């Protein structure tokens, strides 16, 4: 997304910064990879369905080839002791990255509404992380409640 912003706004100047911010809000509102949503929405805006398809193809095809090549390297060499050692470190590091991401997303919500935010966060964590409930059920149970609470305070 960092690179998308740099290319679309700064290099090519296809979008003004405020247009980009608006599109980003839409893409974060929707499920799925933000950058995939962004490409779809931009492509749709320029040329409708063919535009969206072209933007998606441009975004996905080359990385998919590269990642498939990486996957085949992993499948072949992932069992070697040296590679195994490297991954022991990198996987531990990546787990920390997920933790930091949770912190980044949590910070503004906790600042605005500490009590309800933390209760909902804790409930989702316990349900999926500790009780291992399916994500879909947890979303179905918690999202309407949390959205209703948010709706009430926007009144």
């Amino acid at each position: 997304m960092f690179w998308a912003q740099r290319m679309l706004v700064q290099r090519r100047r296809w979008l003004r910064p405020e247009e980009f911010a608006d599109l980003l809000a839409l893409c974060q509102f929707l499920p799925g990879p933000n950058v995939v949503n962004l490409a779809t929405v931009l492509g749709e805006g320029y040329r409708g369905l063919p535009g969206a398809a072209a933007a998606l193809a441009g975004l996905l095809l080359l990385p998919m080839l590269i990642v498939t090549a990486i996957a085949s390297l992993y499948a072949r060499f992932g069992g070697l002791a040296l590679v195994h050692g490297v991954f022991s470190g990198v996987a531990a590091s990546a787990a920390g990255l997920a933790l930091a991401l949770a912190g980044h997303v949590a910070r503004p919500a906790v600042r605005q509404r500490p009590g309800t935010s933390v209760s909902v966060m804790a409930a989702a964590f316990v349900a999926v992380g500790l009780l291992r409930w399916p994500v879909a059920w947890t979303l179905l149970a918690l999202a309407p409640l949390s959205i209703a609470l948010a709706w009430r305070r926007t009144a």
Partner: protein
Amino acid sequence: MTAAGTLAALARVFAGVSLLGFGGINTVLPEIHREAVEAARWITDRQFADLYALSQAEPGPNSFIATLIGFQAAGVAGAVVSTMAICLPPAALAYLVARVWGRIRGSRWRAAIQAGLTPVMVGLITASALILIRAADHSAAAFAVTAGTAVLAYATNINPLWAFAVAGLLGLAGVF
């Protein structure tokens, strides 16, 4: 399972989680773990942690963890099917919503949905982190690397790939 059966299962799993992934792939990792590690056994717990690390370091969207798991389960065809399954349903939804975005942009319920989903997402991402820690951290040194990366990525603007590089070198030296 037959080859076609595995491809169908990959498509079902990844298309199924794709529309639940508010805020990106990290909110549905627990579900992917359940399906790929516990139910279908396409990969081990350890490989799950490895492939997550790869998906954070590679050039495509983070959702390409689906590509990596798909390859482990069913080769190149598995990689392609899984990538399409995780990307196309959200893209189709984005395509439809883009056409009405102008009308819902400033509405009160849109703001409420977004504000309401955020804390749920945080809980799910933290659950993902727990699953990754369980899979990746089997020594005190590994826990220290996890904690160090978390602090670095949360509190500084340093590119976390540097933490990956240092952690990889430590691993190469046999620290874990």
